[in-house]
């Protein structure tokens, strides 16, 4: 037993005067005694355990026994047929007499006569060998525990029965670091006893460390922690009492971010799945770019959502007052409204009004009206440029043709996108002020980066085609004015719990200032529509979120403004809305990569740089701007904080991926069938049906179900993404495994297992050995009918397999899997000589057969 914590205080320590030797002598003795005791206890413990286990087992086996003995009887009842095996017992094929009890050595029973009476088992063709593999429809990052690096792996050579340990160098054999010693219960007891009775000093420590594992430092720490634990044990009961409440359901006191913790950490915003195996969890928080299309039934159409609806109030009060603006509003048939209340903390850059979650083609104009108290209409034409790599940080450069004086300031070019962004934001506001009663149209070109660290918003400035209607204020303002008096005081704001507040803000983001929807969808059961409305209009809400400092001075309404769509754009937009699916494709295609309409905001405090994205250095793009067809000069992006090194070759590769789709035809649907837009197909998984069957050549093969034309995309080659170091190691292992089975060695074995694609940009290698798809079974040929291409898709590098020529249905697929001279990992370079010397097996080689 561990001594009680109270002992520590009361136990008399060794007298300082006592001779050190004596003390140590007794200590060793005591420890030895304790050790013996511990060992004896252990023996008893094991014995008891085994006995208990044995009893349980015995009890169980008797149950099994009864089942076994009834087996025959149930059978004879049910079937009436006596198994031949039973009748054979009476009439065996033959009998071999045993040895006489004395002389066993003489006779030798031989069974050769039997073959005549053998029953034939008809041949069945065996499958070509394969190792169990998992189907992947997308690449996965290798899980830590799958690494073979630093792990000893033993091979045997089936012919020679020789086991080989596959670890290439001494360096790898040495364990990376000494494992931390884990103290057993018994060790705890020893050191507790020793230190409690003899005090914590070096001599005692020395003796203790003879008996107990771990370094002396570890021992000391352990002692401390035991002490704390023991002390803690006393206090525990009182602590427990306080905690048990709450934790049921959502705790309204918690902030929304806490409530959303698992969502934030486990949800992959690039793949839109939880627990993404490619990008991992705890990704730097990227807010979903898709600002949902703000639900906005035209206010006037709305029916009260319930008797608690604020519209009930409004209807009476505002009818006359608002009729004008309501009418105007209805004319506009606002379909999309964007609320850009600053939701994020002040350091966050708020994107001004992104219209919708839908990936709209970039050439759609969005004319929004700013909901300022100064009547002004700012039509913002936005274009989103989805960056190819998802990682490029782009400095917006303004198109050369922008001529508007009002927006001079926008021309500022800065390396720092963040500042650009905020600057431009200010600029907008300034512009707005400048041109108070002028229509300002912004063509804002958005460069979207998935890197999450910033987005750049490039307002460029074609001014003033939109006739603006000064009466076009939103009704909200007025409504709020009119309502405030009414609802004020009904509910005190302090009733709003943090979670509710944040839910409300989310609601505003999603639904605009539509209290009905907010209350119903986000705060149901918590707040009524009326409460939401009053909260909304009480103003305080958005205060803390006035992230846009500059704007707040201008826009009285706490920096809120609604962007509404004007008539002009409605035709195109609604058409697009109708064909949602199509537009999605268009959207993707005009720039070859980019996650669907992602633009992001940065959460403050969150990691500013995103490790898993590898920003690429220079990506050049030519883009046309929507209406004007203006050519945006190349956007030259340079990343200050790019931490990934890119090789030139990769950039080329990427450019290849980038080119071929989208260029010159921004916003236009790619013509189907011609001009392969390869990575679009990858993104959309528009792949050919691949069949797995026995190869005509060797082993397994991949076959095509339907005929394809030259350069058609066949499918993605998926696998585990592993590091080069890992790849080297695995390569050796695969080689080894194959070389052990020379009789199996064929193209399939040597190729498909080794079909790594180098995604060197990302410093990754793709390994499809255990995880992949059917394309990994395609065989090698020097005269192939397919080729592989690394493409950048939505920021991830992927390998697409394309037809090199026309391929007929049910033809087998081959690629030439040749490494470029410098691309090949070392193991692929046929290390003829090296194989031998690795076979030195330091320990524990296992053999299946006896060595002769």
């Amino acid at each position, binding site marked *: 037993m561990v001594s009680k914590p109270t002992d520590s205080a009361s136990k008399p320590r060794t007298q300082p005067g006592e001779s050190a030797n004596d003390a140590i002598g007794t200590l060793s003795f005591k420890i030895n005694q304790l050790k013996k005791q511990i060992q004896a206890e252990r023996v008893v413990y094991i014995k008891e355990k085994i006995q208990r286990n044995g009893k349980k087992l015995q009890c169980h086996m008797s149950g099994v026994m009864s*089942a076994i003995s009834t087996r025959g009887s149930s059978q004879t009842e049910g079937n009436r047929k006596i198994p031949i095996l039973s009748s054979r017992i009476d009439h065996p*094929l033959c009998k071999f007499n045993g040895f006489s009890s004395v002389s066993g050595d003489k006779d030798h*029973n031989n*069974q050769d006569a039997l073959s005549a009476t053998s029953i034939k088992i008809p041949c069945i063709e065996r499958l070509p060998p394969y190792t169990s593999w998992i189907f992947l429809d997308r690449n996965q990052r290798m899980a830590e525990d*799958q690494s073979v690096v630093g792990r000893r792996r033993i091979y045997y050579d089936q012919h020679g029965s020789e086991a080989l340990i596959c670890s290439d160098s001494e360096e790898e054999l040495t364990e990376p670091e000494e494992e931390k010693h884990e103290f057993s219960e018994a060790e705890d007891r020893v050191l507790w006893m020793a230190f409690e009775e003899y005090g914590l000093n070096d001599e005692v420590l020395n003796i203790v460390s003879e008996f107990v594992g771990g370094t002396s430092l570890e021992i000391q720490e352990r002692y401390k922690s035991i002490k704390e634990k023991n002390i803690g044990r006393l206090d525990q009961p009182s602590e427990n009492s306080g905690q048990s409440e709450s934790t049921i359901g959502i705790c309204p006191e918690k902030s929304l971010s806490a409530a959303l913790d698992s969502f934030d950490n486990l949800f992959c915003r690039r793949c839109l799945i939880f627990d993404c195996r490619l990008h991992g969890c705890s990704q730097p928080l990227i807010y979903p770019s898709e600002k949902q299309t703000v639900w906005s039934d035209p206010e006037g159409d709305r029916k009260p959502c319930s008797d608690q609806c604020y519209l009930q109030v409004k209807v009476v009060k505002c009818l006359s007052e608002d009729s004008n603006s309501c009418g105007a509003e209805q004319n506009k048939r606002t379909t999309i409204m964007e609320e850009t209340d600053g939701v994020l903390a002040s350091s966050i850059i708020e994107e001004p009004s992104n219209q919708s979650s839908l990936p709209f083609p970039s050439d759609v104009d969005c004319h929004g009206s700013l909901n300022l108290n100064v009547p002004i209409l700012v039509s913002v034409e936005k274009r989103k440029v989805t960056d190819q790599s998802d990682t490029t940080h782009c400095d917006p450069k303004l198109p050369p043709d922008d001529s508007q004086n009002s927006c001079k300031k926008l021309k500022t070019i800065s390396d720092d996108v963040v500042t650009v962004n905020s600057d431009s934001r200010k600029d907008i506001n300034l512009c707005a002020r400048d041109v108070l009663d002028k229509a300002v149209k912004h063509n804002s070109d958005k460069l979207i980066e998935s890197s999450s660290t910033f987005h750049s918003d490039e307002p460029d400035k074609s001014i003033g085609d939109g006739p603006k209607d000064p009466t076009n204020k939103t009704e909200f303002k007025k409504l709020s004015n009119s309502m405030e008096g009414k609802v004020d005081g009904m509910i005190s704001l302090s009733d709003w719990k943090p979670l509710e507040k944040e839910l409300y803000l989310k609601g505003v983001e999603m639904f605009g200032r539509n209290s009905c929807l907010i209350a119903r969808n986000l705060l149901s059961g918590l707040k009524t529509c009326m409460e939401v409305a009053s909260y909304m209009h009480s103003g305080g809400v958005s205060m803390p979120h006035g992230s846009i400092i500059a704007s707040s001075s201008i826009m009285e309404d706490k920096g809120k403004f609604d962007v509404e769509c004007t008539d002009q754009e409605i035709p195109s937009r609604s058409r697009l809305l109708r064909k949602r699916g199509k537009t999605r494709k268009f959207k993707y295609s005009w720039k070859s990569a980019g996650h669907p309409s992602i633009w992001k905001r940065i959460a403050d405090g969150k990691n500013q740089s995103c490790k898993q994205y590898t920003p690429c250095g220079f990506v050049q793009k030519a883009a046309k701007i929507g209406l004007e067809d203006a050519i945006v000069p190349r956007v030259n992006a340079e990343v200050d904080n790019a931490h990934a090194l890119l090789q030139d070759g990769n950039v080329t590769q990427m450019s290849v991926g980038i080119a071929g789709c989208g260029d010159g035809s921004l916003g236009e649907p790619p013509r189907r069938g011609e001009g392969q837009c390869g990575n679009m197909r990858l993104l959309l998984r528009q792949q050919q049906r691949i069949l797995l069957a026995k190869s005509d050549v060797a082993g397994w093969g991949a076959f095509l179900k339907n005929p394809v034309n030259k350069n058609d995309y066949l499918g993605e080659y998926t696998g585990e993404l592993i590091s080069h170091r890992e790849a080297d190691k695995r390569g050796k292992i695969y080689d080894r495994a194959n070389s052990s089975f020379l009789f199996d060695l064929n193209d399939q074995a040597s190729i498909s297992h080794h079909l790594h694609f180098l995604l060197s940009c990302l410093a990754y290698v793709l390994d499809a050995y255990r995880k992949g798809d059917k394309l990994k079974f395609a065989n090698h040929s020097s005269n192939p009918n397919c080729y592989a291409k690394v493409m950048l898709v939505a920021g991830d590098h992927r390998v697409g397999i394309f037809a090199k020529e026309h391929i007929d249905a049910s033809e087998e697929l081959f690629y030439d899997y040749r490494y470029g001279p410098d691309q090949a990992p070392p193991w692929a370079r046929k290390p003829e000589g090296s194989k031998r010397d690795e076979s030195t097996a330091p320990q524990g080689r296992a053999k299946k057969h006896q060595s002769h």
Partner: protein
Amino acid sequence: MGGETGKSFGLGCDPVVGSLSSSRKREYRVTNRLQEGKRPLYAIVFNFIDSRYFNVFATVGGNRVTVYQCLEGGVIAVLQSYVDEDKDESFYTVSWACNVDGIPYAVAGGINGVIRVIDAGNEKIHKSFVGHGDSVNEIRTQTLKPSLVISASKDESVRLWNVHTGICILIFAGAGGHRNEVLSVDFHPSDIYRIASCGMDNTVKIWSMKEFWTYVEKSFTWTDLPSKFPTKYVQFPVYNASVHLNYVDCNRWLGDFILSKSVDNEIVLWEPKVKEQTPGEGVVDILQKYPVPECDIWFIKFSCDFHFNMVAVGNREGKIFIWELQSSPPVLIARLSHPQSKSPIRQTATSFDGSTILSCCEDGTIWRWDDVTN
């Protein structure tokens, strides 16, 4: 004495090691010896799932499956003999099973990876399971539901089959699966959902099919083509531990404990404990060790009697060690040796009550030892 399991045991964690001095509790004598053929015999197994056939056993070697019966006085009768027409087949394992009517089946597998379900009740092949991508190293039967067999394969997977309907129900492989050949597998004696598997990746894994049990039940009533059955992957074991530092070539449940063997001249009895913080990653508490000298090549499998009172294991030199399993410290019941038995013993078979020990050897011989204590 026994080889090291690689772990140094902390104070108070050391196992109880059996002493190799024989207690001579029982005395065994060779009563028969049979030369079955020229090819190595890899498996020998008594029928423990049907009390009518407790003295019936099967062997496999080369392309041959043979069914024998142990009779009084050391007599061995040949009951049935099956030969695969594929001469290159080399069976590695055999297990007894039966259909829902109790018709006895012998289920064998080997280098071809095809599992042969032989209907010993009708002396014909019942079904052949094609699916494993490589050699089948071991097949075991669920005693509580003897239509369920489980197979361990070189293709790194373990598969659960229903021999009655011919369905592959589950595949235990994938993200958390074995990373090299699976050499051995065993059903938990009482917990019908559990299996343990081990192999060349030096790990022992415990799998649970609890969540997939509906598929197991479904497999009994499946009337469509077996290939249309929605076979499921079980990708993650509930427990994973490195008990040994080398190939683990045999594991068996002993109640809730596990007996396993590597090439370290010993059988180890240990308790799998799951760490609370990190489910899946297991802690091993090694309780006892049963030394087996000269047992350092892999693919040597041990056997227990029906009640798990004893374990018999052969070694590289043709000797057999019989340990009392459930005594602490372990007692060596007997050490069997014969001047002519020199070939590695691939597997032993212990009869229902332990009174007969059979061994099958690399040189194609079958040895029968009978308890002559009385």
